[in-house]
């Protein structure tokens, strides 16, 4: 615990120091403080998880009236570990990236504080502490999104979306917690839990859904996901990696911590709704992801998709708890934790690779990229690893996590009956559809961006990628492979956190080294051995085919369909790759096409030029948010008639108001 507090102060000190030092060292100081802070907190949290310790800390002087209350146990230590592990790599990456790409002084200063606030949130043990840390995170992250507002005009809109959604979420969470506080009379979480019986059923339901929606807006459940594709792409890459990799986790943390652990076993229809929302989120997120062709926006949508999977998991776990199947509930919960961990790391890494690509090629549009495997080999291989992870193929981390989650869902299908089982099938549907679409989305991303040749007609001046950027990305890539090949080590750690959630020892990690095997699961997949044997197969088959073949190899042009191969524009682009899927799902996504052709003057049979525009917008934004925006505007117009700025009028209003109050009082 002390170690953790020390690490926080290092972070804040580094932030302050970065304000004073000269421009040259600013980013290095800030990054080094991030690295030091996160290494310390990673060790502290790992220690707490492994030894299953429990600490608490109270500082009455810090916040007036209420003071700060923190607890540190193996559940929130897991979240702290994920955040700080990611932050180490991002700190390293930022040292190289920030020198040229992050110009704003204030963002450099804010980033360590943002990370500190994210480490602080899971620790909070009382409502006031929690809300204070939550607001700190909200404000600092808004500043980070605003970093590039001078050079990029999209930032303004993104910040508007982000700040309104994040405050809406905070308000919902606060309302939900206030209901619990007023009903129990305590604001410390442990005391709320002890007195949860005093909360009536309707209040419980309202609090449950307020908290779910509030945290859901941070995690990005549909239809509250709308800010992710705006805000994540606009922040500089290290920051968007942190937001997509770690901040959305805190949304899931909130749902687990408050809805599941604090409100206890609830009605099953709560969780059925959670599963349904999760499944819609997963499907919608992956569909948008497959159709998008902006690298960072696509990644943001894929975060929505992964959040959907986790929400499905949380919902199914809740259903199993309310049905009394604790063993399988904890299996599913472990799957959720694994998915959380795996997702943070591969998504963080993919954002870092996106940042490196932007740094090198000055564009994020996949339609303009191509052939990066030749020019940026290390970053591209990292990206391929990320793609493997996110598509859940062995031996990468995503496979292990999704396998545990899938087994959990399967056991839930087998062990529940009636409406609950149907609800779980809904979750399975979401899981399955999202899985297929995600794989396609990332075949597209990797295939178009990394292979072929560059689709951009003019090549921008090549900037060399600093070593630290590659090192940070590589660190995360290696951990993706590690988590995939040695899942038993990860499961050992996750099992301890799961045990704390359920306050019971329910699962047993029994498998041998490099395998996934948990009691309650029916298979024991030896990822490591399978991987090694497939390497042997690859080498063997390569050898054999070399023996049999003529060993002749000729390098030629690609086939140009009978004519000379020339144009780079004949290649498929990201948009055309997703063309068939876009046509299939046209009814859902409704993209706007427009073809304008201008004719030659002599005759309209001769076409001079054709302009094709294709506009692809989030449909939910159009259907749900645009009417709301319009209503707000109308409301603003109506009220502006009343408030026209004339002082006389305001005095009159004041007079009438006073009169009304007096009449009312007498």
């Amino acid at each position, binding site marked *: 615990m002390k170690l953790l507090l020390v690490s926080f102060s290092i972070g804040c000190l580094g932030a302050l120091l970065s304000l004073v030092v000269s421009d040259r060292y600013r980013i290095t100081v800030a990054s080094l403080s991030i690295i030091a802070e996160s290494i310390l907190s990673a060790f502290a949290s790992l220690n707490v998880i492994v030894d299953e310790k429990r600490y608490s800390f109270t500082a009455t002087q810090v916040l007036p009236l209420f003071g700060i209350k923190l607890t540190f146990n193996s559940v929130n230590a897991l979240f702290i570990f994920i955040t700080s592990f990611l932050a180490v790599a991002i700190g390293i990456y930022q040292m190289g990236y920030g020198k040229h790409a992050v110009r704003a002084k204030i963002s450099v200063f804010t980033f360590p504080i943002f990370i500190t606030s994210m480490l602080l949130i899971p620790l909070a043990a009382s409502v006031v502490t929690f809300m204070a840390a939550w607001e700190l995170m909200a404000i600092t992250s808004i500043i980070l999104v605003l970093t590039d507002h001078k050079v990029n005009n999209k930032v303004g809109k993104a910040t508007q979306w982000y700040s309104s959604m994040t405050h809406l979420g905070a308000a919902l969470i606060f309302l939900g917690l206030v209901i619990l506080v007023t009903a129990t009379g305590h604001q410390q979480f442990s005391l709320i839990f002890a007195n949860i019986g005093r909360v009536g059923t309707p209040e419980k339901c309202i609090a449950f859904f307020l908290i779910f929606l509030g945290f859901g807006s941070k995690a990005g459940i549909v239809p509250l996901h709308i800010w992710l594709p705006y805000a994540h792409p606009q922040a500089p890459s290290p920051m968007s990696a942190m937001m997509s990799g770690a901040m959305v986790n805190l949304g899931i943390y909130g749902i687990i911590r408050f809805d599941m652990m604090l409100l206890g076993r609830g009605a099953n229809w709560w969780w059925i709704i959670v599963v349904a929302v999760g499944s819609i989120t997963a499907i919608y997120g992956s569909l948008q992801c*497959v159709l998008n062709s902006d690298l960072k926006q696509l990644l943001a949508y894929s975060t929505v998709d992964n959040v959907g999977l986790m929400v499905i998991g949380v919902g199914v776990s809740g259903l199993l708890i309310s049905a009394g199947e604790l063993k399988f509930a904890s299996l599913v919960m472990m799957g959720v934790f694994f998915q959380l961990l795996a997702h943070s790391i591969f998504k963080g890494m993919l954002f870092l690779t996106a940042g490196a690509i932007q740094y090198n090629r000055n564009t994020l549009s996949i339609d303009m990229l191509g*052939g990066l*495997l*030749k020019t940026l080999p290390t970053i591209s291989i990292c990206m391929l690893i990320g793609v*493997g992870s996110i598509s*859940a*193929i*062995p031996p990468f981390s995503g496979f292990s996590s999704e*396998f545990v989650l899938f087994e959990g*869902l*399967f056991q839930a*299908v*087998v062990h529940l009956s009636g409406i609950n089982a149907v609800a779980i*099938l809904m979750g*399975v*549907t979401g899981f*399955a*559809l999202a*899985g*297929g*679409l995600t*794989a*396609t989305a990332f*075949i*597209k991303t*990797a*295939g178009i961006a990394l*292979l*072929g*040749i560059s689709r951009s007609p003019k090549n921008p001046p090549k900037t060399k990628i600093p070593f630290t950027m590659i090192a940070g990305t590589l660190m995360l890539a290696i951990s993706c492979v590690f988590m995939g090949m040695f899942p038993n080590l990860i499961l050992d750690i996750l099992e301890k956190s799961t045990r704390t959630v359920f306050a019971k020892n329910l699962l047993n990690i029994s498998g041998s080294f490099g395998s996934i095997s948990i009691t309650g699961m*029916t*298979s024991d*997949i*030896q990822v490591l051995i*399978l991987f090694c*044997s*497939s390497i042997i197969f*690859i080498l063997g*088959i*390569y050898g054999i*085919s070399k023996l*049999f*073949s*003529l060993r*002749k*190899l*000729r390098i*030629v*042009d*690609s*086939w140009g369909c009978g004519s000379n*191969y020339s144009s780079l524009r*004949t*290649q*498929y682009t990201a948009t055309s*790759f*997703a063309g*068939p899927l876009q*046509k*299939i799902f046209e009814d859902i996504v409704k993209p706007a096409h427009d073809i304008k052709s201008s004719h030659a003057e002599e005759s309209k049979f001769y076409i001079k030029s054709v302009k094709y525009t294709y506009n692809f917008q989030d449909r939910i934004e159009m259907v749900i948010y645009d009417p709301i925006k319009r209503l707000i505007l109308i409301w603003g117009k109506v009220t502006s008639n009343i408030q026209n700025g004339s002082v006389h009028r305001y005095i009159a209003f004041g007079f009438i108001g006073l009169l009304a109050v007096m009449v009312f009082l007498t």
Partner: protein
Amino acid sequence: MSLFGSVTSLLQILFVLLMAPLLNGIMLKVKSRAERRVGPPILQTFYDLRKLFKKETLRSNNSTFIFTLAPLILISSTVVVIVVSPIITTGELFNGSGDLFAIVFILLIGSMSIALLGLDAATAFGGMGSSRAATITSLSEPALLVSVIALSVQAKSTNLSVIVLGNVHHVSWLLSPSHILAISALLIVIFAEAGRLPVDNPATHLELTMIYEAMILESSGENLALVKLSEFMRFTFLLCIASNLFFPFGIDSTKSWIFIGISCILLAIKLIFIVGLIALFETTQAKLRLFRVPELLAGAFVLAILATISGIVV
């Protein structure tokens, strides 16, 4: 790691390796006969593969290491699923790893690597093929995953060996509505995954309709041979799994050498029967338009969901 396990794993690989080109030859023969043609000899596929291995390999100057690696990954992922699955015996080497979920995702490695191969050489056809194949994969994958659950519900296990053994011991499971619906979903998915009619026509190089052939258009020589061979092996593997799930009798569960021999012969007969039926079926079919394929796959998805529901209810 027992001797028996190791030898049977090798036997399974050999069995599929030899059966795959043979079955393709038989299919071509049956199809030709049904169309009143003489058709190529049954062993023609072997000759074709040998010819491809002997040919010079051309490689595009735009391509990367993916160009060589992708066919190798494709074939080795196929070999891995063959090793972990119960094909001629349920007592294979990596018994615990033969999980249906894992098999689905190991097969996905192959599909992904071959889709990347299509995009590697920067040609329009490669991209077209990859895009279409990825579209089909993205729609068949969900149906496959849900039918995995449907097939596993009765045995309460996602482990393929356990499911097959369960089917051997409980004959009533085989005729339950859940099982039949799940198998029909699985069959549709197999047709889509293996690129057979009515989803894709392996015998055509017509540019507007080809899917799989477009992806591998740039490959030649030994690369093409490996891709072709693994394509046949994947199809054979999927048919083996389908036949073991639908009609498992004859599969060895006693771990004795005699039974393994019998099991090999029986499985070969079953496979020949199945491909004969498929060939006859394909002669009556025309290829679907690409945008009709989703309807077929959505049908498979619904069948799989229905199968799961009836599995839970009954």
